């Protein structure tokens, strides 16, 4: 099982804050976005267009990052901390 987390503006796009997903083998980000597309096409589109950042276990992903059972995947819109 993997956990998906949606932050800030992505919560309303995904329609949820968090969900769980069962995977049997490690999957790529592209494969993950195909799965997400079934429930939330807009979210999957943003992932493919790299409009959101994705972290796995609190580390930013690279193109070849594999998602494995037990991982926490987070969808992060562009950051705006620090005020100015």
């Amino acid at each position, binding site marked *: 099982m993997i956990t998906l*987390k949606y*932050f*800030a*503006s992505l919560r309303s796009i995904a329609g949820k804050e968090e969900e769980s997903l069962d995977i049997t083998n490690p999957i790529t980000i592209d494969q993950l976005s195909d799965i997400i597309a079934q429930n939330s096409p807009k979210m999957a589109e943003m992932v493919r267009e790299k409009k959101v950042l994705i*972290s796995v276990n*609190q580390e930013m992903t690279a193109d070849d990052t594999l998602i494995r059972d037990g991982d926490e995947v*987070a969808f*992060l*819109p*562009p*950051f*705006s*901390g*620090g*005020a*100015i």
Partner: protein
Amino acid sequence: MSTTTFSKVRIQLEDFSVTDEIEAMKKVSRNIGGITTFLGTGRELSKGENISKLNFEHYPKMAEKKLEEIREKAIQDFGVIDMSIIHRIGPIEIGENIVLIVAVGEHRGETFKACEWAIAELKRTTPIWKRETTTKGEVWVQDTP
């Protein structure tokens, strides 16, 4: 001095005292000659819109980890003696404190450089988001730093 424990990197709902944070950093060494501090506060105007309120959200654990990475890299790359970084989350009124970076060093040059780098790096790498309340409603701020 409050009874707060001074972890050098924190994300918290409560306000902080700049004086207390500086005094905590001073205790690290008797060889501190320069302390540069950056304090970000809530502005009333943003792109011509009048803001009545701000609200910050973060990704727990990951945000703290990024701040700690910034702190360690500042010490390593700029040669400052130490650095503390505190970011508030939750509702923030205009004029209130949002983020504080304190860089302490033997000389002033490295503390200015480290502090300016750290706030830019925080905006670039730390999963914290801002929601602004204006007359038009609430919006998540999504511009890049």
